[in-house]
């Protein structure tokens, strides 16, 4: 099945009756690229045999990250949902590259939304063309979802800020050219651009992870890391608001990424169920396997609709924070269920073969990263209960 599938095409026709053809051209071309240049490399990226940097660069050059950004900075000016669909496809083709690209684009979105004109002109064209890779540095060793306990500081001295502290579990650390760093100032959490290399910035070892093994994750340490005051993004003291906004949007994207992971685990299961024989027939003929197939397909489609719905609210300028959280909670947990069923359908081969269980390993990250399921449920419930006041 092609990565840009008939399901995607139908979705575009339904949501964009006037422009679906144009969006489909963009997505099918990108899908063809991913199918040929990324999908076959995915097992070798997982095993560490192939570094993802080369294919990722090629993908960014194709224009993957340009999709939702304004044309004046080198973007394509297309709807956010089109970008989300592209992320889903990338999740199918190569999940860890998708994680890296998703973080990169979250930074670009943050700069587009909160950066000064000078910052946008200086960095967005480089980020959108893939000349620069970006990293989002918020989480700390002792503070994750609870951003109020941030220990990293930025002190203003003359025309500069000096950043001190450390950040943990940072995707693209050590590879990125631009770091969006959150640190406490006198006015509260603030957001800074740090360009690499910087003598005040160093990186820990690449962390060995359960999944998403192609993407580099490590600690980033700031020790008198000096940046010009012009690198402050937006206003001092507003960093927490910016981070929240960036993460709301990223949650839609993470939901799309997980739909992509579930999709490939499902397709492999479908193919295997059709060819594996037991008791004189293929296992796809057994009702209990059919139940799994029906549930997997239904849940994938439901999750796809949820992220599309949240995307469309975002495009229309409405408050999509709760819908983004719902999409992320449902999609990330759904992909774990689907990938678990995939292992079950593949039996012993599922448990012992990277080609099956790596999708579960990849999916496992995302009920934790970019807002845990627990925190997001808290946000969804808070919003619902507030309606009764």
């Amino acid at each position, binding site marked *: 099945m*092609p990565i840009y599938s*008939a399901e995607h095409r139908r979705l575009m026709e339904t949501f964009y009756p006037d422009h679906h053809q*144009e969006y489909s*051209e*963009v997505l099918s*071309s*990108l899908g*063809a*690229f991913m199918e040929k240049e990324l999908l076959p490399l995915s097992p070798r990226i997982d095993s560490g045999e192939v570094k993802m940097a080369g294919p990722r660069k090629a993908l960014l*050059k*194709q*224009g*993957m990250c*340009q*999709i939702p950004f304004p044309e004046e900075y080198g973007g*394509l000016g297309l709807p956010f949902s089109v970008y989300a669909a592209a992320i889903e496809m990338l999740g199918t083709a190569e999940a860890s590259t998708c994680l890296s690209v998703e973080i990169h684009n979250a930074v670009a979105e943050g700069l587009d939304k909160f950066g000064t004109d000078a910052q946008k002109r200086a960095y967005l064209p480089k980020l959108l063309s893939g000349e620069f890779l970006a990293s989002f540095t918020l989480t700390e060793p002792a503070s994750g979802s609870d951003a109020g306990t941030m220990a990293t500081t930025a002190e203003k001295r003359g025309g500069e800020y000096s950043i001190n502290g450390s950040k943990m579990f940072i995707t693209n650390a050590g590879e990125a050219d631009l770091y969006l760093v959150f640190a406490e100032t006198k006015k509260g959490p603030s957001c800074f651009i740090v360009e690499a290399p910087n003598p005040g910035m160093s990186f820990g070892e690449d962390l060995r992870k359960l999944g998403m093994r192609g993407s580099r994750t490590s600690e980033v340490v700031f020790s008198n890391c000096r940046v010009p005051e012009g690198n402050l993004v937006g206003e001092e003291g507003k960093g927490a608001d910016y981070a929240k906004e960036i993460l709301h949007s990223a949650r839609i994207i993470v939901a799309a990424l997980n739909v992509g992971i579930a999709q490939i685990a499902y397709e492999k299961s479908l193919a295997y169920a059709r060819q594996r024989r037991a008791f004189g027939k293929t296992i796809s003929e057994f009702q209990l396997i059919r139940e799994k197939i029906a549930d997997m397909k239904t849940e994938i489609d439901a999750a796809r609709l949820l992220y599309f719905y949240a995307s469309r609210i975002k495009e229309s300028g409405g408050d999509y924070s709760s819908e983004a959280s719902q999409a992320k909670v449902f999609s990330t947990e759904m992909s774990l269920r689907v990938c678990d069923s995939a292992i079950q359908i593949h039996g012993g081969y599922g448990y012992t073969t990277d080609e099956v269980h790596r999708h579960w390993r990849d999916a496992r990250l995302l009920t934790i990263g970019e807002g845990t399921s627990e925190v997001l449920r808290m946000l969804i419930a808070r919003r619902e209960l507030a309606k009764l006041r």
Partner: protein
Amino acid sequence: MKIAVCVKHAVDETELKVDSGGNPQLKGAPTKMSTFDKNAVEEALRLKAAHQGEVVVVTVGTPEAKKTMKEALAMGADKGVLVSADPMAMDTRRTSELLAAALKKGGPYDVILCSEGSSDMYSGLVPPMLGELLGLPYVGYAKKIDVNGQSAKVERALEDSVEVVEAPLPLVVSVVSEINEPRYPTLIQIMQAGKKPMEDLTPEALLPGAGPPMPLVKGMKAQAMARKRVVFEGPPEETAKKLVDALAAEGVLPR
């Protein structure tokens, strides 16, 4: 240098379904640019990069063929020409006549490129017919093309050998897939392709007074291939020899 590339908007053979009676389900099947045509477009773009000039993409197709045209334009072609007719409803001779007339109208071209055959019907008849109809030399199955001044040196990939020929320009060349690796258009190129010029031509204007095309034989069936399931048993040194002998007897080993 003025280069024309003839392309076809074809059924996506990788997505083609066959019904229980062995008939291919062409209606509603996904479509795309015929697979090897991308190699022809790529070669045209490489020739343009080396010799300057213009690349014009020509196709006979239904309005849906504009998708293929746009893809070729996104890859880097400069202009598209669509002859509005359904190639699946006519014989290859009529397709070739329409292409030849469109090429005469927009020409003269120095090089006319085609692929060795379309990925749906794969008759491979159009390129030589074009040569004949235009009165130009035709070189088929090119795996390398070097244009030098007013002639081209072409390496032809034949079944078990490579033939090198030299022919004067203008000429018609069909290419095989090993000639190059087609580029992927970037997303910006895809978005901008719609702004490039596209000319619409009709069969009536190109071939006034032409009668109806030759009727097509109705019905196609997928070729059923039965496996012979031959198993050689014994030690490897014996079975290897038996296998080689059997393959030689089948005529599938190179001469």
